[in-house]
């Protein structure tokens, strides 16, 4: 049994018919429940639920306070390399795009780490383009060894690995995984990934479970919103997180709901996901999984991010830079996408406090 079987259980469902049959009283009843089923979660993602966003928001706020308190964990991404062997139609790093390819030396990794550590952050997320050749597991491991000196928690957002490779990185000091399935709809996934190893839908889909089996402490999942109907993509993301929590109850699970951003290549997303849609997704997920983390990156604009603090967000990036070596040498590299909230860590700290919340810089220590 893997999540692929769970996915297949629902993938042929007629979601429109399900949404059409929902009545107002169904939505009200679900909002009042203490434990939601998978179909309850789907109902809260429906067009019918849109007029109950305020009720959902009140409950989401209450649940988040109860389980996480008035705290927001801060982290920042560090791009190690932008070499990529895939042809993802929506990504600035894809193999056919002309940009300066770069991979940080360990000395450069250390220089970037020193700058980030100077802001006080202790959680870092390291990213590479998807190229095993240029960003091998042993390279990621070497970078982890350097970063351990500066950070107490190291997450990876890299190409999918085998269980043994995850175990090796955990041994080296990695404690969390972020893995974007990009599109859960299998056909859309294949359309978006015409060539390269990333085209293997199931190897990617089952990567978070391999990480859980290897002993990863925390996993963060997401679909890239804009590639396909957001309601079903949000549903499958939640289903995936719920599957992992059921099977690996000691793993801390969370979602990221990233929306498409401008980037090199100019791909136009087929689906527009509005702020209202994004909020509905976040609220529905909070009611479905009260203890699940919700990560809001700097893809979103400052005003929206601040509103999301009270609607269920638990983790935020700050002082982000999507260019390789961007903190020491900003002019020489192209980012993966344009960020929308460019505020530095000190500013974000003040902003979070101003909303009555505490920014948490250290919330884990590799042991």
């Amino acid at each position, binding site marked *: 049994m893997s999540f692929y079987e769970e996915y297949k259980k629902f993938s042929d469902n007629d979601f429109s018919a399900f949404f059409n049959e929902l009545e107002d009283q169904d939505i009200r009843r679900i909002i009042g429940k203490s434990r939601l089923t998978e179909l309850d979660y789907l109902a809260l993602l429906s067009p019918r639920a849109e007029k109950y966003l305020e009720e959902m928001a009140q409950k989401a706020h209450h649940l988040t*306070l*109860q*389980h*996480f*308190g*008035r*705290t927001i964990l801060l982290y920042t991404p560090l791009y190690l390399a932008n070499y990529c062997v895939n042809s993802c139609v929506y990504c600035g790093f894809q193999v056919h795009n002309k940009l300066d390819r770069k991979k940080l030396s360990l000395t450069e990794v250390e220089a970037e780490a020193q700058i980030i550590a100077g802001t*006080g952050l*202790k959680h870092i997320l390291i990213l590479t383009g998807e190229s095993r050749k240029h960003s091998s597991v042993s390279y990621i491991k070497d970078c982890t060894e350097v970063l351990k000196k500066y950070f*107490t928690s190291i997450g990876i957002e890299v190409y999918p690995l085998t269980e043994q490779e995850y175990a090796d990185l955990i041994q080296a000091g990695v404690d969390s995984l972020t893995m974007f399935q990009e599109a859960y709809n299998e056909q859309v996934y294949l359309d978006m990934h015409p060539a390269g190893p990333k085209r293997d839908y199931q190897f990617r889909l089952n990567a978070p479970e391999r990480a859980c089996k290897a002993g990863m*402490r925390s996993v963060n999942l997401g679909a890239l919103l804009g590639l396909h109907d957001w309601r079903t993509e949000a549903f499958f993301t939640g289903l995936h997180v719920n599957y992992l*929590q059921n099977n690996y*109850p*000691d*793993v*801390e*699970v969370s979602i990221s709901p990233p929306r498409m951003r401008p980037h090199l290549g100019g791909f136009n997303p087929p689906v527009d996901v509005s702020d209202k849609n994004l909020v509905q997704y976040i609220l529905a997920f909070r009611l479905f999984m009260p*203890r699940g983390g919700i990560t809001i990156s700097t893809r979103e604009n400052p005003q929206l991010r601040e509103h999301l603090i009270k609607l269920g967000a638990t983790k935020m990036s700050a002082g982000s830079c999507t260019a390789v070596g961007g903190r020491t040498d900003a002019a020489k590299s192209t980012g993966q996408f344009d960020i929308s909230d460019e505020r530095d860590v000190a500013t974000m700290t003040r902003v979070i*406090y101003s909303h*009555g*919340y*505490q*920014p*948490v*810089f*250290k*919330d*884990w*220590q590799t*042991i």
Partner: protein
Amino acid sequence: MHDALMIGGQEVTSRLFLGTGKFASNDMIPELVNVSGAQVVTVAIRRVDPDYPEENVANYIPGNCILMPNTSGARNAREAVRIAKLGRAAGCGDWVKIEVIADNRYLLPDNYETIKATEELAADGFVVLPYISPDLMVARKLEEVGAAAVMPLGAPIGSNRGLKTKELIKILIEECSLPVIVDAGIGRPSQAAEAMEIGAAAVLVNTAIATAKDPVAMARAFGQAVEAGRNAFLANPGEVFEYARASSPLTGFLRNE
């Protein structure tokens, strides 16, 4: 009469223990300690950052408090022991609250792993206060392996639901010689007072204070409630009767012949 609570050879002056994980700012901690009278304050070692004093929660605990670091984040005994030792190395002292949680839906403690961690840390000189699901056999085992107190949950962490496990906690209080400190689930001062009235040695509160609209006023209320509950326990409350005790007895017409 001097009513002392002794834990690990140290006298504790307040029976309200304060948790610190959910506040809007670490700056609030000294005031909350002050108004509540709390002396024992727990901090998650995962949040202790000796490199960055400004954000280090441990730096906000007043000097006259007993710091009780906890092993939040540990999934098994091995991790709890490791975290406890990291805390001691970071200067957090010898007290430790063992939290071993391998269920992220309800955050219920793993009693078996908790016993293992307690045994190892007590042997290593720690003053160990384990967080447990209330179970007499577990409490006895913890006493045997050197725990300084037991901390049964009243209801799931953060739920503010009160003493849902009251009957089991009463058994622990009656049968254990260790102090029984009710941890988790207490959501109202009245519930804290109730725990103290039935003989709990102390209560630990975090979410109820952190999620109140006015945390300072709520911290004060908890301090008062815990004191009132303790005084009521010491006063030996009168018996509870199912039926009214009439001042004009129904059998008053009977006379001794």
